């Protein structure tokens, strides 16, 4: 039964992967890439890793796909600078080398694989959380997650730095040159309210079942982008104080709770007993907001100028 399900999944994954790297129309290849993200998501589900699956679909398929679509659109207007056959051959050799090394490693790994999962399970009750992945992200390895939210903010600053700073109060350029069509408008009006609900649910449910701040934030970001693309709302002005506070909220609420840990608990990023779960939820609210805003702004790109 499982082979019946898994073999087609694996074949489809390989097929869309080949379509994505084979030559031809850039848009079709980006579409194949997005499909690849979706198929990978299903594979993660089959591997019993639903948290990874959600992230893969939201970020790997959705947000990255949008960025690539934009790049494919821009590339049409640039001078075509094709790469030679040698380049493709070298890239293929490199990729096959990595594949061979990975395959060898998978065969070399001890069976059963050593894992920290039992330790996580033992210690999870102390955190009042039900989802072990959230436990690892927000409690056991909280420093990594805290700094990942900073990485996202710094990446956005890097994108903005492509525009001279007097423009930093302006708005990003529109994603598409074309005016929004009726179909997109309709789609956005139907999908956005549902999507926002799904995003909030993903983050809220993440404490106990698969989901969490990153997945929820990615879905919310995608909904904001859809609404902007359909013309339901304008791209935000990047100088707005509320927007910037939303960007800072996640990393600095997390940092604030971490620092408070020194005084009300035993260590940096230690949550005091009794209010552990409410505190974690509060941190996750802030992180989700920051991730949603930062991801959407990353896709929208650097400020374009004072027009709009």
């Amino acid at each position, binding site marked *: 039964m499982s082979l019946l399900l898994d073999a087609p999944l694996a074949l489809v994954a390989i097929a869309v992967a080949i379509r994505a790297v084979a030559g031809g129309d850039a848009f079709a290849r980006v579409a194949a890439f997005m499909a690849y993200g979706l198929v990978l998501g299903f594979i993660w589900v089959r591997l019993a890793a639903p948290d990874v699956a959600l992230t893969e679909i939201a970020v790997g398929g959705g947000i990255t796909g949008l960025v690539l679509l934009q790049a494919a659109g821009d590339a049409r207007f640039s001078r075509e600078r094709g790469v030679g056959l040698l380049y493709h051959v070298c890239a293929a050799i490199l990729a096959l080398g990595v594949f061979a090394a990975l395959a*060898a490693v998978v065969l070399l*790994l001890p069976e059963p694989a050593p894992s920290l999962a039992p330790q996580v399970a033992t210690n999870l009750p102390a955190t009042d959380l039900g989802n072990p992945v959230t436990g690892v992200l927000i409690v056991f390895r909280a420093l990594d997650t805290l700094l990942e939210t900073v990485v996202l903010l710094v990446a956005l600053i890097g994108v903005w730095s492509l525009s001279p700073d007097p423009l930093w109060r302006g708005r990003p350029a529109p994603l598409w040159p074309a005016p929004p069509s009726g179909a997109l408008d309709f789609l956005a009006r139907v999908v956005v309210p549902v999507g926002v609900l799904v995003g909030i649910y993903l983050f809220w449910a993440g404490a106990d079942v698969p989901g969490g701040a990153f997945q929820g934030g990615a879905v919310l970001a995608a909904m904001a982008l859809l609404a902007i693309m359909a013309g339901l709302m304008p791209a935000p002005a990047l100088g707005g104080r509320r927007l910037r506070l939303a960007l800072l909220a996640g990393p600095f609420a997390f940092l604030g709770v971490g620092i408070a840990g020194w005084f009300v608990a035993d260590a940096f990023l230690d949550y005091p007993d009794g209010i552990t779960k409410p505190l974690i939820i509060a941190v996750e609210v802030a992180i989700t907001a920051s991730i949603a805003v930062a991801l959407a702004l990353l896709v929208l790109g650097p400020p374009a100028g004072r027009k709009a």
Partner: protein
Amino acid sequence: MSGILGSALAGDMLLVGAVILPLFALPPLLLAPPRLAERLSVLVLLASLLVALALAARVGADGAALATFIGGWRPPLGVGLRADGFSAFMLVMTAVVLFATGLFAMTTPGAAPGRVARGRMPPAFWMLLASVFSALNLVFLAEDLFTLYVALELLTFAAVPLVCLDGKLAQVEAALRYLLFALFGSVLYLLGAVIIYGLYGTLDIILVARAASASPGFVLALAAMSVGMMAKAALFPLHLWLPPAHSGAPPAASAMLSAVVIKAPIFLLVRFWLDLAPTGLAVAVAPVLAGLGAAAILVGSLVALAQPRLKLLIAYSTAAQIGYLFLMFPLAVVASPWSALAWTGGALHLASHAFSKAAMFMAAGLMAEALGHDRISGLSGVGRAVPVALVAFGLGGLSLMGLPPAGGFIAKVMLLSAAIHLDAWWIAAVILAGGLLAGGYVLKVVGLALQRPAEPLAVRPVARWREWVALALALVAVGFGFVPLEPSSFLFIGRPASWAGLVP
């Protein structure tokens, strides 16, 4: 350290503070007016420098490594931060260079608003500087392979945009190439970390080292991580991204990139091969690293000699100078009384290169600002326009050449003595040849700059105190020349790395 919080908590705060304090420059930079935000950023840099100094003082006073566990969760489940003598040394070096970079980039106090706008660094520069600071400190303190991956990501995303702050097309291309190399390095690093977790079920460096043996999977993981770090460190033949990136950035950014950012992957390579790998494996691999280092020194220096532009020359010199740090490996990993001297020499070279290179990039930036260009052929007489900057450049160059009295001299003497006593004659030969070549490219510039110009120079004024910042850094590099010629006991505090009984 008899603060109200008690010494145990204070050590904890110093370790975490070193990582998070620089980040507190971000909110004012995003919310406050630029001038005020810039001043606050410099204050945050100063506070971070003080934390680094306090941490080093504490490590020195205790004579033992400081350690803390985030949220109180111990490895393998949680993440630990740890500062031994070598980490503390790197922290202080980085903090001094980055604080000086901040002073150099600051707008002149009291300058009229109109004049300010011309030379002012954008808020993005300050945000990226603060993020680089935090990321580097995390690289030096983290004991967990995934936390280190986060640190490397933060470092990459903060460092790459520094290259294209002026927004010119060539700079954006250089930044993209840097980004590709750096991400390639990150992917290989992450791959290695995943393999190690699959093998040993932990990401803590100290716990992995306890369990590790030279099994094929572990060797593959170390190889992947090392190649990744070499790409980030621009070790020959993966150095092609460095010269355009480091020479195209604004001077303050170049100084930061060439002096300290490049040292993070080298620090990690040292940790992989001295702390993580079994000794036998390290001894077998070290000559390969040294061979690449030797090639970097010879090729980088020769190409530097041929450069028409000053900033490119200095950038190629960086590609050459990091070679010395790889020459250290075969000398430092063997079990010999001389390896401690080689190790001290390597650390000294790392620090004196950081200070002299930051000084030279700043000085070159000031020369270019005064003349309006940085063509070496047109530098004639620039010594009259910016004499202090030229002295800073010359003193920095002195250290690169390895002439006394300079940090580079004492570092090379240590490496040379170790090489000769360990019968590694080819390493000794490369060290000497590299010094001669460095002499060639530094003297070429200084000689021209001291000449009387053929026609009077049209010189734009530069802020004098920025010249003094460059000079101060160069003087620190020279000051290293006065450390005693013996293995440093501070660098060996808390080594070999262990959790000292804190983790069962």
